[in-house]
């Protein structure tokens, strides 16, 4: 491997690593911000203290997750320039403005109102505080809108022309760039994924406390138990209603991808050979790019065409219809796709199970349901990352699909520089964000308290009542 190839590979590792870590936090905070908005809204409407307890409990977790999302996000915005400078020069005139709009309409909105949301309830009053919470939630959504538009444009570029310097420039209407063909599907699929991810985390937290309370035979009227019941119930409603919608949204995105990026779908399906009489559905196997086939495959005849074309006999292309230097690494895409779909089906199962339990008025009693909910707590994150790996590895070897190759996008950097930064990111991210996740788990384990105190506002005494003291790690 030449030095330039090594540097390119390291830069790709670095981007993949930092974006995967980063996206864990927004996929949680997009959903959690909306959940907080709902909780505070219900509290204002009903006046029931359980909603305020839950709000104050989850807002602390939100603060930790959001801080990690912010700092890992700043890294992303600069990495376009540091590691992908050729891409930035060429694509900057088209996607740069969309990212600038994200900063102007979303990041400032979140950041501007976050302080009030976290610390300001006593200072501004309930209604204005609720408005601040709504603004933070709106900000997370607007942010998703813009960044997914950027990502989708890179997958399905439209509305552009090339100038004399070899840059992509807008050809006519910005709407053609922003609302590119894959954007609506990706936006819906990603935002629903965030809601589903959050509901599974909330559900797992509620289930944990239900199990513990049930074992300790806690009085069911106790406030903390009521809060655990409420969050479990809300989360299971969300999972039951949204998981089926997500499966439909995913199917639609798959069909959209087949239309615009057929080679990606063929990699997801493991279809190396064309199937003129209808493609099988390969359930499992070991795809090999080198051999151009899937080893040890288990398949259902014609089912692939049935799913993708809604006709068992419809012909389907194979990867061999495309030049070999345009194949994605099929094994990665094939398996990450199966992880995502498998977890999606498990989420659907959990939602249906909770509906059965609810129908029999056993939602708070079926301990195996609670255990399953705990196991499924991190499933949303895994599915989200697996989904992104599918779409991002699946569009290789392109950064701008069909137009600009990844190998022609990178910065002219020395290998030692990229190697050092990659090692530094790996160490710092695992240490810092690992500790942050551990703090979040500690907060979750403590659970919502009756009359949950607000996030301590100035000054927080080191030796006095602090949020940290509620973790039980200080006497």
């Amino acid at each position, binding site marked *: 491997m030449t030095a330039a190839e090594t540097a390119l590979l390291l830069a790709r590792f670095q981007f993949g690593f930092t974006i995967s870590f980063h996206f864990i936090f927004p996929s949680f905070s997009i959903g959690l911000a909306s959940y907080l908005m709902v909780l505070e809204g219900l509290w204002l409407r009903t006046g029931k203290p359980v909603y305020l307890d839950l709000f104050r409990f989850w807002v602390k977790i939100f*603060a930790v997750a959001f*801080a990690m999302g*912010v*700092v890992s996000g*700043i*890294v992303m*915005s*600069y990495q376009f*320039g*540091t*590691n992908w*400078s*050729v891409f930035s*020069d060429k694509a*900057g*005139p088209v996607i*740069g*403005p969309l*990212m*600038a*709009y*994200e*900063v102007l*309409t979303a*990041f*400032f909105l979140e*950041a*501007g*109102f*976050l*302080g*009030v949301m*976290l*610390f300001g309830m*006593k*200072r*501004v009053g309930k209604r204005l505080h609720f408005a601040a919470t709504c603004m933070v939630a709106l900000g997370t959504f607007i942010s998703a809108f813009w960044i997914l538009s950027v990502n989708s444009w890179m997958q399905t570029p439209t509305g552009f022309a090339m100038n004399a310097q070899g*840059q992509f*420039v*807008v050809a006519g209407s910005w709407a053609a760039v922003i609302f590119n063909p894959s954007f609506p599907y990706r936006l819906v699929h990603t935002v629903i994924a965030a809601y589903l991810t959050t509901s599974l985390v909330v559900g797992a937290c509620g289930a944990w406390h239900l199990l513990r309370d049930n074992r300790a035979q806690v009085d069911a009227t106790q406030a903390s138990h009521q809060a655990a019941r409420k969050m479990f119930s809300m989360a299971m409603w969300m999972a039951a209603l949204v998981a089926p919608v997500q499966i439909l949204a995913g199917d639609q995105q798959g069909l959209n991808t087949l239309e615009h990026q057929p080679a990606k779908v063929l990699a997801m399906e493991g279809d190396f050979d064309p199937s003129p009489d209808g493609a099988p559905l390969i359930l499992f196997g070991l795809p090999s790019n080198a051999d151009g086939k899937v080893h040890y495959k288990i398949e259902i005849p014609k089912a692939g065409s049935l799913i993708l074309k809604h006709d068992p006999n419809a012909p389907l292309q194979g990867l061999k219809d495309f030049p070999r230097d345009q194949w994605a690494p099929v094994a990665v895409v094939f398996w990450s796709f199966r992880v995502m779909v498998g977890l999606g089906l498990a989420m659907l199962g959990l939602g249906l199970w909770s509906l059965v339990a609810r129908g029999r008025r056993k939602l708070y009693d079926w301990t195996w349901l609670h255990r399953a909910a705990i196991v499924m707590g991190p499933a949303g994150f895994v599915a989200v990352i697996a989904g992104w790996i599918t779409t991002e590895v699946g569009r290789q070897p392109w950064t701008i699909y069909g137009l600009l190759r990844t190998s022609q996008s990178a*910065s002219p950097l020395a290998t*030692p520089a990229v190697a050092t*930064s990659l090692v530094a990111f790996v160490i*710092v*991210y695992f240490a*810092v964000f690992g*500790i*942050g996740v551990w*703090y979040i788990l*500690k907060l979750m384990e403590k659970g919502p308290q009756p009359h949950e105190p607000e996030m*301590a506002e*100035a*000054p927080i005494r*080191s*030796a006095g009542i*602090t949020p*940290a003291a509620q*973790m039980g*790690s*200080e006497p």
Partner: protein
Amino acid sequence: MIVDPTLAYIWAFIIAFAVFMYVVMDGFDLGIGILFPAFGVGEERDQAMNAIAPVWDGNETWLVLGGGGLMAAFPLAFAILMPAMYPPIIAMLLGLVFRGVAFEFRWRDPRHRAFWDFAFTAGSLTAALAQGIVLGALLQGVHVTGRAYGGGWLDWLSPFSLLTGAGTVAAYALLGSCWLIFKTEGGAQAHAYRLARIAGVAAALAVMAVSVATLFIAGADYQHRWLTFPNVLFAAQVPLLVGILSVAFWWALLRKKELMPFLLTLGLYLLCFAGLGISMFPYIVPGAVKIVDAASPAASQVFMLIGTAIMVPLILSYTAWSYWVFRGKVGESAGYH
């Protein structure tokens, strides 16, 4: 699809504005991070932290606007400068990771609070130093080949860039101490006054050293820009005003003014920015790429200008509102619980 010079200059001004907003707003909270070890463990540190906790995130957003805006409005400059400054930029980003999470983590884990306080300082110091080094590396010139950076990965490192790095640390510390004078009272405030005097002297020396050293950068035309007639008539106003404001600043410190030292420091920052403008205009990569040559097509710049014209006034309004909500001394609500 054609570049419009007027638009390009408007955008150069907007980027400069975003960078200025970032430097002064994150400057005071980075400065507090730099000074953190000087504060007593316990109440004084908690007060210093609480003076910035509700606003740091918004302050840092200006950095994203500066970077994102540069990519959108001047993609060529972004593509040349980021690889040229690779190590300091990465160091800055990692520094910002540590200090950003320290705001939350120090409250979550009292047993390891000393560690997170250290991380807060180390992260703030690294970020400030790296930003100053980037400034110096920019002024000393960047090797450009075609449409890309053409130098080595350690070209940014020089005595001059280390000097600008140290100067930025001192200048942020000055801004941080002035913010604390404004936001605290009693013992913490008295301490902040003392720190402001030290940081003020250090920053003044650093600004003088950087100004003089800039004139002697090899291969650059800074002497021509600053010292030849008639340029000097205009350019000399900057150091003259710096001198006046510095005297006023010292007077305000001695008279125990609370807001005035902070405002005068802002004025000094603005003058330093004007000085940078004199040194750089009309280049965006000094000596190599002009503002108009790096600019995006007019279509991109117009599209963003519409959003900027609508959003920036709104952003400034609700940012001001947020500062207003958390107005007053952080010590005043003692015993709030």
